[in-house]
């Protein structure tokens, strides 16, 4: 892979809107990605392996629960800082960002928000430091867009719960130490349970042969008569709204992360177009290439503004699920289109591992599907503006 020459586009001088601390946090993450992720990520993606050696670095730059209060090992940062960290990590690779998203929004967030004090104290500091890694079990083989239909269930056995079922497409599953698992009780009500590696009957087989997020480990969570201690129930909230609250947080992070992937593709394509000579001049001088590049920077700039405003709303506690859906959907689609156009600018070179573009493009095929598919997010907007839910039977 070529040296990482990334220069971040900031066409509308958004840096002027960020605080001193936002910039410090963002630049630290940016420097770290350049130093520790870019030089190795292509190799790990090619061999379909998660680079576990970067977990310590992710923790150091605050990628694990940056908005969790300091007393629980977090950094007590705001939502814009969280977004900027996700943006910078995904600039390196969506798979690495997925690992950080899951840890922050899908494991630490529910333990912090729905957990009791003992659970917060036990899990959050170790998750923030990366000593423990977490995963989140909601999606099942037969229930993707319709998680409410889940079949995983637990029974009250008096002194413990007995958990049975299976979860699929779970980031971090093969190496997770803890899993936040959503299952129905005997009354059919959804609850969150913290399952720890080592509990009898709990296994995490890896999903192989992915063409996407290859530098991130994906797998299953299988529960066969797993005895879960009663103190591992998340008591703060039950019902489908509880896991969906976590998804709001993760989707928000993705709306920033996707910008990072797009920025990297745009920057690579712009540099290549200026250097690549055909017919006696740089291909950047040809109108068709300029159209691609000009549209890319326009769309990136719009996505940046969308994410920034959503960050402000999130900081004020006002961001709605529908607003988050709009940003996730728009920004991921923007990124995938940017990656495809950038790939064309690089011609044949675009398909090689010398450049990051094809890796981003393939990663984004997962990002556009997970955490609410592209179509479902459109229907969430549709429901929000019309009052009619078009995705329910």
């Amino acid at each position, binding site marked *: 892979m070529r040296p990482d020459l990334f220069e971040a586009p*900031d066409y509308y001088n958004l*840096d002027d809107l960020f605080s001193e*601390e936002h910039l410090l946090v963002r630049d630290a993450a940016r420097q770290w990605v350049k130093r520790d992720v870019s030089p190795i990520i292509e190799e790990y993606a090619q061999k379909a392996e998660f680079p576990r050696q970067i977990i310590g670095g992710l923790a*150091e*730059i605050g990628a694990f629960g940056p908005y969790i209060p300091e007393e629980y090992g977090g950094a007590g940062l705001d939502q814009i800082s969280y977004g900027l960290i996700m943006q910078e990590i995904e600039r390196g690779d969506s798979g690495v960002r997925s690992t950080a998203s899951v840890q922050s929004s899908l494991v630490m967030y529910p333990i912090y928000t729905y957990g009791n004090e003992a659970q917060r104290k036990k899990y959050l500091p170790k998750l923030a430091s990366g000593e423990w890694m977490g995963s989140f079990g909601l999606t099942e083989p037969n229930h993707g867009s319709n998680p409410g239909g889940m079949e995983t269930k637990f029974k009250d056995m008096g002194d413990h719960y007995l958990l049975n079922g299976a979860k699929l497409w779970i980031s971090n599953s093969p190496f997770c130490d803890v899993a936040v698992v959503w299952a129905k009780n005997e009354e059919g009500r959804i609850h969150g349970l913290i399952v720890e590696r080592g509990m009898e009957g709990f296994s995490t087989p890896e999903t192989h042969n992915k063409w996407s997020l290859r530098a991130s480990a994906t797998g299953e969570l299988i529960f066969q008569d797993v005895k879960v201690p009663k103190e591992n129930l998340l008591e703060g909230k039950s019902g489908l709204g509880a896991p969906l609250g976590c998804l709001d947080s993760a989707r928000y992070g993705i709306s920033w992360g996707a910008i990072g992937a797009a920025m990297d593709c745009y920057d690579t394509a712009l540099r290549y177009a200026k250097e690549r000579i055909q017919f006696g001049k740089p291909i950047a001088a040809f109108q068709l290439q300029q159209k691609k590049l000009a549209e890319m920077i326009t769309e990136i700039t719009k996505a940046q503004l969308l994410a920034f405003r959503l960050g402000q709303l999130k900081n004020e506690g006002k961001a709605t699920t529908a607003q988050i859906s709009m940003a996730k959907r728009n920004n991921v689609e923007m990124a995938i289109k940017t990656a495809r156009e950038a790939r064309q600018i690089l011609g044949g070179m675009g398909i090689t591992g010398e450049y990051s573009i094809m890796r981003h493009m393939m990663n984004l095929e997962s990002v556009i599907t997970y955490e609410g598919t592209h179509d479902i997010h459109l229907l969430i907007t549709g429901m929000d503006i019309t009052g009619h839910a078009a995705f329910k039977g």
Partner: protein
Amino acid sequence: MKILVCISNVPDTTSKINFTDGDTKFDTNGVQFVINPNDEFGLTRAMWFKEKQGATVHVANVGGPTTEPTIRKALAIGADEAIRVNAEPTDGFFVAQQLAEVVKNGGYDLVIAGRESIDYNGGMVPGILATLLDMNFVNTCISLEVDGNNATAMREIDGGKEKISTSLPLVIGGQKGLVEESDLRIPNMRGIMMARKKALNVIEPVDAAKATQDAKFEKPAAKGAVKLVDNVDDLINLLHNEAKAI
């Protein structure tokens, strides 16, 4: 040991350079600023003295409020306290006089400044500062050890290195070699959080003369078109007849 690291706030090397006001002022619009690399090598070495020898490290910058993100980064890397002299650093003599005042008031044993900033490349400040303070001075310093009151420094000289024994108080004009690029630190979250609580003291400049002022900036001529030649004879012909270089 009390160390002062002087840091300049300079454009990132990838910045597009433009000028305004009839080519007399640098256009900062859209430019990202960083700690001057020569200063960052010094800061990183100072962190080593802090961690291994219990030194206290302060940073000082002469600049307007817009330099504070760069100063805060130095605090996040691990400096204990910062001082910003609230004035535009337009002249090396002026800057050195401001820093001399900071050193006098702070009672520092060791002052580390970059041998030059990578924006204006004046290269004056550490030398003038040492003279104003009547301190020992080692310029283009590529390694530094301190043992009690004694210091051993290495300098880069033409075709080799020079080892110098000297004593504190001392001013260093530092550069790469004080530490290597791979030793430079990225602020971690713990450091960023701690930096929130560290003092960044803003002081007003003392009256000081400026020895120079910028009359005009000129950018290098734009690169011309590239000509590809197939053989040495053609190359010699072009260099001789067209470029008139040989």
